């Protein structure tokens, strides 16, 4: 039974690391500020939550005392909840600032570059 818990936590950690890498590659390759935010959301929600879930399960496997493992898992849960609530807030504020000062977003239809008034 504990073997399956171990394997499940490793699957969570590997999937979280993969989603983190996918989000960072998207943030490097996407053409626009808003689409880059869309790619960065993969890192900040799915990657972080899967990695911390895997680490929280792994704490009960590694640590000998249940009390200490509960403390570690509680800290991990607090960090994950904090990131889960504050990263969309940050992205919202940044998207509003980018819409205010960064010019029009790319839509794929405008090819002539005549209406783009970029201040920065």
């Amino acid at each position, binding site marked *: 039974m504990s073997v399956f818990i171990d394997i499940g936590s*490793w699957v969570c*950690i*590997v999937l*979280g*690391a*993969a989603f*983190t*890498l996918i*989000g*960072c*590659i998207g*943030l*490097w390759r996407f053409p626009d*500020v808003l689409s*880059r*935010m869309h790619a*960065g959301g993969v*890192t*900040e929600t799915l*990657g*972080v939550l899967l*990695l*911390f879930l895997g*680490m929280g399960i*792994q*704490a009960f496997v*590694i*640590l000998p005392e249940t009390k*200490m493992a509960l*403390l*570690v898992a509680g*800290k*991990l849960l*607090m*960090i994950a909840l*904090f*990131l889960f609530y*504050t*990263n969309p*807030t*940050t992205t919202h*504020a*940044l998207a*509003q*600032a*980018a819409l*205010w*000062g*960064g010019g029009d977003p790319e839509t794929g239809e405008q090819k002539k570059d005549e209406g783009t008034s*970029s201040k*920065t």
Partner: protein
Amino acid sequence: MFEFAAAVTLISMAIIIAAALKGPTVYDRILAVNTFGTLSVILIALYGFLDGRPEFLDIAMVYALINFIATIAVTKYIKFSRLGRSVDVDEAEDI
């Protein structure tokens, strides 16, 4: 397997630094720095498990708090050119 996750996180941090240096506008750079802070939280937590000392999670929590406050502050500074009271966008241009 923690080593694998830490290595992937380090590669992601290298990509993020390159994206922060590349990004054409200031908003790309702010987004990249915010993601870099999230990745450093992950890396500190992973290092605590690698070293066998879970006290590193407290440092990771402090990093998450500082990352949020810093990104909001920088965004507000870019948008309003100040950190004090919030003004309207129309007022901010003629001060």
